[in-house]
């Protein structure tokens, strides 16, 4: 330990003797009033991406979500009216800066044509297939009717039904079936389109 720095260090006023800034930022890098710490709470929203239909695009998108620790609830992908395009619908739960990042990072994925967060009035649907015990078939049927579902398979031991709806309705229906004993559930995750004349994705002319 003969180096000068070990004994004395570099010249200059010590940290405690320095002028200090008055402000502060929060964990999201946003300048805040130190009195009122303002963290953005997470919110749930639907992001829709129109992508070129090519191998690996789903892997790129899902890899992006896991690498950047974006919190996703569901992700669906399938064809569109154009064979060259697929639509990816993601339900995310993030604070606002995170939602902004998701959109921008998705936009950077090369085969992505357009990304947008859908408005609250977007038309969203999810499909669920539920398999329940068949001990009380009439009651199961009544619940299925009530949620405008369809019986796909009815046997002596199990009944399998299909329901579609928005997330809330699906959650409610599943709750209602619990009394019979749910054996298995498969949910598709939400898919969605913007309402009315609003375009879910805007495709630049040169890609049409």
């Amino acid at each position: 330990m003969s180096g000068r720095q070990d004994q004395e260090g570099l010249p200059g006023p010590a940290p405690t003797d320095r002028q200090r800034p008055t402000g502060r930022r929060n964990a999201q890098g946003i300048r805040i009033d130190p009195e009122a710490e303002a963290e953005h709470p997470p919110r749930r929203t639907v992001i829709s991406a129109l992508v070129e239909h090519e191998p690996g695009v789903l892997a790129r998108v899902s890899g992006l979500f896991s690498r950047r620790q974006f919190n996703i609830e569901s992700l669906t992908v399938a064809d569109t009216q154009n064979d060259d395009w697929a639509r990816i619908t993601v339900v995310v739960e993030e604070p606002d800066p995170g939602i902004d990042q998701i959109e921008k990072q998705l936009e950077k994925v090369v085969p992505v044509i357009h990304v947008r967060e859908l408005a609250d009035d977007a038309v969203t649907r999810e499909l669920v297939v539920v398999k329940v015990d068949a001990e009380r078939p009439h009651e199961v049927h009544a619940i299925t009717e009530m949620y405008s579902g369809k019986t796909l398979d009815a046997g002596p031991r199990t009944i399998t039904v299909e329901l579609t709806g928005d997330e809330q309705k699906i959650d409610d229906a599943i709750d209602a079936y619990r009394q019979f004993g749910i054996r298995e559930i498969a949910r598709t995750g939400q898919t969605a389109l913007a309402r009315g004349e609003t375009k879910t994705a805007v495709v630049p002319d040169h890609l049409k």
Partner: protein
Amino acid sequence: MTEQGAVPDFGDSERPPGDEQGDDAQRQTDDDTDCSADAAEEGADGETKRTGATSVVESLEAAGVDTVFGVQGGAIMPVYDALYDSEDIRHVTMAHEQGAAHAADAYGMVTGDPGICMATSGPGATNLVTGIADADMDSEPMVALTGQVPTELVGNDAFQETDTVGVTTPITKSNYFASSPDTVGEDVSTAFALADHGRQGPTVVDLPKDVTQGETDAEPSEPAVPGTVSVQERAPTADVAAAAETIADADKPVILAGGGVVKGEATDEVRAFATEFDVPVVTTMPGIGAFPEDHDLALEMAGMHGTGYANMAVSLTDCLVAVGTRFDDRLTGGVDSFAPDAEVVHVDIDPAEISKNIEADHPLVGDAGTVVEQLADAMPAAPDTEDWVAQCQEWKVEYPLDYAVPSDQSDDGSTPSRPPEDEPVKPQYVVETVDAATDDDTIVTTGVGQHQMWACQYWTYTEPRTWVSSHGLGAMGYGVPSAIGARVAADDDQSVVCFDGDGSFMMTCQELVVAVREQMDITVFVLNNEAIGMVRQWQDAFFEGRRMASEYPWVPKFDKLAEAFGADGFRIEDYDDVPDTVEAALAVDGPAVVDVYIDPTEEVYPMVPSGGDNGQFALSRDHL
């Protein structure tokens, strides 16, 4: 660019064994005496068949590529075979694929054009990964071409099969799996264009052997980015005006110049803005060279090992004009205390960088130079910075970068660079001595560790693209191969020096053989503290001095090692040797290695510990 096509000149010196005529001469002889390769490619009608591999090489030529760094291997052999016929492209045979990737990365850094590296499938491709990740973190333009097993074997865990596209997806701008000999040329052109476009970065094209061997009539295509990709050059006028207003109103504005200023060729615009409006400039580490460090307004690098004055300015500024930076945590420290009083104007070509780590009050997406010029034109008035600039100058005096001034000399006012005879050599003095002995346009490359930080702090960078380092990834082993890539890219009269640590040097020193074979003029200074010094510094500071696996009981004699490779070796043990040995090593016309025995107790300060407050930088361990 410069050494393009040059036949290595070994002069009267000893030739490396086995190389009687040098590479190109060898190729010539092969052409004259043995046409089997060509014969094999000729069809029944005697016409040379065009293959996917031909297409790959033609696409590279069409893109203006002059150099490929690579290593041969089974799955990539067809592409190498096509390269055999290329008049335009020089191949630099590296010792290890990691070296090829770092060399291509450095080539991209120095020229601004994508560097090309090439490797076989499986281990060849995985060996490239560190270099690709490095290029991704530092936004260096690079294209990696990897061999792949034939398409019909893909997915079968065939010999040397690795899912290269899968492995490299998170560390590339994009990557391509070539599916047909007819389109593989276009894949390469697209990958090249994308690597160079907007925010630069690495791309990969994976080349199954049947695709490169298959016949095709396809002609080379001009590089063009996919239709889904676009960048915004200019920021909206109203946003620019609002940002300009904020800057004009500021009392304590600072420009933070990031790597994007260098890569976006915006150094002139930033310099013009700073000097016209008297705004001090700090840089990030990749931003070194963006603003001349000998300028009055230069506060040099901010962040973990930045200067005290840069960190004071960043900490207290009321308006931070950040250009081409992603606000890496090594720069910001804890975001809660980063420039907490500042309105942030953030200029970046990548919209995803805006408000990613630090919220931008004035986001300006666009090309760095274009937007800075827009800002300059929109300034309603110059800010009144007289007091602030004076304050920054005061900090420069208060917090000098300093080392090892013996007490008897500092008292009588002699210059700090006059070292004491009786102390071990200070690494900072070596950096300063090499800086003084070389021209301003000298390119510096480094490994990663303390030596890298001393090379940042004690060298005065005045020109862009002269600082070549592994910033975001911090990859030890970057130094020697990047010196090779920089050498190929640099002008003939530009010097290339590398500051390496003994630990970093041991990771890729095998690439010295390349410098010897190709007679590349590089000078490597190994700042040898017989330790992975940066780790030891942290152990002493944060782990109660428990020096686990950080000190080497034995390191090779690097001068002797250099000689064994066929390079010139030097050793420095005393202060007295420094100037003369530095001169002698720099004078060598070819690769030279100087093993510098430095003071092993020397540490890097100032220091902002991870997540700390920039303004509270430590000047010694006591402050941590």
